[in-house]
């Protein structure tokens, strides 16, 4: 290749005119977008690219993680002791509650066995750190420091100490990208904890609010109701808090009420989240329909075999 000539104003480096090169690259862009739109054709390409920009991500995150570790290093002794004491008390309380929970879980398992429904098996979780990288300001997205090497998969649920955070939408070898439940393109199947009313919570694009657009004016829902994930749809494990109802506005001119909820998890303040694996062994292939119609008999036979 010849060195770029400074005076060859009309011609580009490759001999094409600038207009032709522009057209060529623009066509490449458009082709890429068309292929990428359905999110499947370019998975490999995106994974490779995400490794290329990984240094940039780490470099951007570095000052923030350094600041956090510095703060930990130079924290006052008194503050640390106080924090430690607080944690110890919290642990005691949590463990006490956990004991009761274990008993209930066993009881639940026995009852479910009696009813011949699939047992809920505990789930596995992995702590993922949120990389301090701002993504598109118009979308509610996160970058995590876990990827294919940690067996993260697309569609994996993300929770924190308070509730459901979001789900993974794209996995690279070292990092992955998650969408928050408050993203305008995201919806979570939920149920009202008080009465089991099922509906869908849709994001608003604002990290403090969720909408429940599919409830009619006469639905039994009041301000303060806790929404938990219903487990329908199979992405989010059932029973985690999603949000609390903030406002119920009845619109008499329309069939549907306007209901706002605030997310349970601290979406803005988290630095670490949990990636959840549902270890439910795939429900054994349902036995043929005639038997399924008589669950008590089936349960009895299973009990005999055991």
């Amino acid at each position: 290749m010849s060195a770029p000539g400074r005076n060859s104003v009309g011609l580009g480096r490759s001999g094409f005119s600038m207009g032709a090169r522009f057209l060529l690259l623009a066509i490449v862009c458009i082709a890429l977008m068309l292929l990428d739109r359905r999110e499947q054709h370019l998975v490999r390409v995106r994974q490779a690219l995400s490794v290329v920009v990984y240094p940039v991500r780490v470099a951007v995150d570095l000052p923030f993680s350094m600041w956090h570790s510095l703060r930990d290093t130079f924290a006052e002794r008194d503050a640390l002791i106080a924090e430690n004491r607080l944690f110890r008390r919290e642990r005691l309380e949590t463990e006490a509650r956990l004991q009761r929970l274990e008993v209930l879980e066993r009881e639940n398992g026995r009852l479910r066995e009696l009813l011949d429904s699939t047992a809920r098996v505990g789930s596995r979780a992995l702590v993922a750190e949120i990389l301090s990288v701002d993504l598109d300001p118009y979308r509610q997205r996160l970058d995590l420091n876990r990827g294919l090497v940690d067996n993260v998969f697309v569609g994996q649920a993300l929770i924190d100490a308070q509730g459901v955070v979001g789900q993974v939408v794209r996995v690279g070898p070292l990092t992955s990208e998650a969408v928050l439940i408050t993203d305008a393109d995201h919806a979570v199947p939920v149920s009202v904890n008080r009465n089991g009313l099922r509906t869908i919570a849709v994001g608003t694009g604002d990290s403090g609010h969720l909408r429940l657009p599919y409830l009619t004016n006469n639905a039994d829902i009041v301000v303060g109701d806790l929404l938990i994930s219903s487990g329908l749809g199979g992405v989010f494990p059932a029973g985690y808090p999603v949000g609390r109802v903030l406002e119920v506005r009845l619109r008499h001119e329309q069939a549907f009420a306007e209901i706002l909820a605030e997310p349970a998890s601290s979406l803005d303040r988290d630095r670490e989240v949990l990636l959840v694996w549902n270890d439910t062994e795939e429900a054994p292939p349902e036995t043929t329909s005639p038997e399924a119609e008589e669950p008590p008999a089936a349960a009895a036979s299973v009990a005999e075999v055991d």
Partner: protein
Amino acid sequence: MAARSNWLASISSLVATLALAAVPLPNVVAPARPDWVAVVLLYWSLMAPRHFSLLTAFWMGIALDTLTGALLGQNALALLLIVYLAEKFHLQLRVFPLSQLAITVLLLLGLYEFVLFWIDGMAGRTVPLVERWLPPLTGTLVWSALYVLFDRRAREAPARL
């Protein structure tokens, strides 16, 4: 040698620009974040045309798309367009005083935002149309600051006239 260090400087300026585009900002100022990559590429293509090729704009756009999780090629196309326009008309634009240059940059950055918004719309992504006009404004300010600070011609202009 000088040429090589020059290239090193420009490559590192591009990487730094990508980092700037990804630095987290408090929620209050985040909507006003200038489109760093677009601003810096515009600066180079107006001040030192042929320093970077269209291919650079393309790769920067792809990197930005990967970093921000946008549709692959979205930022690349928008960047290509404005860099192409800036390079094509840089001879005419060169003679403009700062105020008119700034207006041109504002228009180009506006075009950039518009292309992004348009592609979002075509792809069926729901994107709120709030404060989308802010980044071109702040971007123009940054561009003017770059021009005044770094461009020798800005200081030489009175002497030449």
